[in-house]
């Protein structure tokens, strides 16, 4: 009979003290499953909502305008220089950019292909506030083509009413090929331009033209270069900052939070999932504690036998390894089972009706696998360390 754990197994496994062992295994299984599933869901949310998140580089961009009430209707509700200074000096607001509207009349037609004609408004803003800024978004005096950044919400709205009006629906790609004719006119003159949609913006609900065009055309058509903004964009780290919200409310400003809601929902979802993950870690820690009690009790009960084995020449290292081998296969089985269940849940998740993102893989993310391996390594390290420590007490 070669040297193996089987020889000494009856000397170490002690009686019916298995409740804490099985509870330890069970707790570990639940904890690992919670951690792995929450990690995978966290990653899924990250990937699913990535494209729709208007939050960029950790900043929220929100639109602020003055509240229109019965009292101030008809009055000047634009932002004065003092208003803008007050806004930009508030702690929590990183930067501001007023949206400058056109002061002249703009009529748009879509040529012969789409029989469509409407009065339009145009706005301009600092380029740094635009989420989708192509290089072609520039204009110089004398240039007859004006680049336009179109709100993707407007495109959605257009596609809703277009069929009822006998107009063709437009995709994000085809809209750039639609010719828009802009008929600009004011007290000082009139001129036609060709509008070219160069990008769609999720962040700004407007028709944006380059600032250079807005400054030139306001002066050219009206003779007045002092255009006042009715809307201001704010760049902030957290649009839900209570201090910021109360500051804006106290100043009677209206905050358009629609655009940040999606990001916030994502953030809340991720917080919930993170809490689940943290709970998983706590359960794992408790399970490890319970299992360590079992190991300590097992070693304490087998103390005399273990001492005699060491006296006879059994190596403490070999004994520790042998004890580790009794629960290692169970640990591996628990973690592999948790991985399989997580994988099955991931496949089920992909069947959900609201998940239609082709980018989402049915396979588990590599970081989930990595965590599973790390968990195994950590649990083995902790438990084998404990066994060695307990054995060294006997020697």
């Amino acid at each position, binding site marked *: *009979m070669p040297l193996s754990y089987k020889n000494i197994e009856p000397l170490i496994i002690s009686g019916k003290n298995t409740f804490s062992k099985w509870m330890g295994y069970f707790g570990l299984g639940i904890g690992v499953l919670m951690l792995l599933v929450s990690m995978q869901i966290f990653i899924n949310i990250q990937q699913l909502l990535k494209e729709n998140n208007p939050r960029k580089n950790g900043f929220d961009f929100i639109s602020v305008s003055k509240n229109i009430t019965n009292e101030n209707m008809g009055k000047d509700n634009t932002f004065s220089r003092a208003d803008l200074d007050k806004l930009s000096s508030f702690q929590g607001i990183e930067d501001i950019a007023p949206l400058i509207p056109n002061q002249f009349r703009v009529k748009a037609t879509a040529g012969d292909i789409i029989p469509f004609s409407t009065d339009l408004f145009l706005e301009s803003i600092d380029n740094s506030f635009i989420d989708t800024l192509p290089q072609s978004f520039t204009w110089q005096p004398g240039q007859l083509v004006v680049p336009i950044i179109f709100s993707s919400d407007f495109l959605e709205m257009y596609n809703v009413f277009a069929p009822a009006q006998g107009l063709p629906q437009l995709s994000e790609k085809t809209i750039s090929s639609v010719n828009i004719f802009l008929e600009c006119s004011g007290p000082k003159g009139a001129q036609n331009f060709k509008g070219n949609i160069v990008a769609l913006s999720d962040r700004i609900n407007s028709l944006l033209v380059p600032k250079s065009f807005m400054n030139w055309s306001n002066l050219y058509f009206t003779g007045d270069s002092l255009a006042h903004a009715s809307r201001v964009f704010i760049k902030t780290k957290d649009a839900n900052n209570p201090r910021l919200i109360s500051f804006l409310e106290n100043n009677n400003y209206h905050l358009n939070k629609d655009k940040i809601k999606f990001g916030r929902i994502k953030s809340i979802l991720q917080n919930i999932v993170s809490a689940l993950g943290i709970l998983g870690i706590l359960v794992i820690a408790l399970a490890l504690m319970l299992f360590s009690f079992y190991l300590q009790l097992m070693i304490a009960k087998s103390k005399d*036998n273990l001492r005699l084995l060491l006296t006879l*020449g*059994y190596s403490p290292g070999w004994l520790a390894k042998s004890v580790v081998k009794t629960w290692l296969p169970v640990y591996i089985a628990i973690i592999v089972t948790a991985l399989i269940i997580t994988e099955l849940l991931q496949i089920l998740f992909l069947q959900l009706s609201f998940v239609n993102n082709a980018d989402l893989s049915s396979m588990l993310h590599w970081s989930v696998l990595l965590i599973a391996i790390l968990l195994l390594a950590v649990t083995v390290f902790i438990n084998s360390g404990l066994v060695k420590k307990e054995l060294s007490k006997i020697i």
Partner: protein
Amino acid sequence: MQINLQEIVPDYISKDKVNKSQIWGKNLIINGGEHLHIVAPSGSGKTSLMHFIYGLRKDYTGNIFYDDGDIKKLSTEGFSSFRQNKISIIFQDMRLFENQTARENIEIKRVLDPYHPPQKIDEMAKRLGIEKKLSQSAKTCSYGEQQRIAIIRSLMQPFNFLLLDEPYSHLDESNRKKAMELIYEECKARNAAMVFADLKPIDFLMDEKVIYL
């Protein structure tokens, strides 16, 4: 191969006893193949000396060298390997696993570093008259039988030194002789030294250097 005892004095022993002893506080070298018979009455430290040499206790001053290595400085893993193939012992209190059978008790030692095949257990058990006890749990065996199990267990491994701490205290004359013959044969086969501690000189021992503790 030698064990060198250099001025060993147990922490608990009186100065008077040290002065009278031929071992305590003196230098003694035990060479390979040598037979040493340590004679001393109860309570004079025979078991302590055996445990010091085997590395179970360190409550002494002086040094014990195995070749050039100080036994006191061996690591826990070092002790394991020392006990697996360099030194073997028959404890006065036997130290068997009570719930294991006689064969399992012997086998647990044999598999560590097998010097003999498993069949040798049956052969030795037959020679010592306990072949029918091999499948019996140790706790159901008499002291004399347990002593013979402990003797066979100690002979299952390679060793250069065999320590015997009153190994025949529960054996009759005939069984003592049989056991002694077996031990002589096994030590001779390994050219190993034998350190035999007992209460009084034993007449059938051969070529022993007798030392009074």
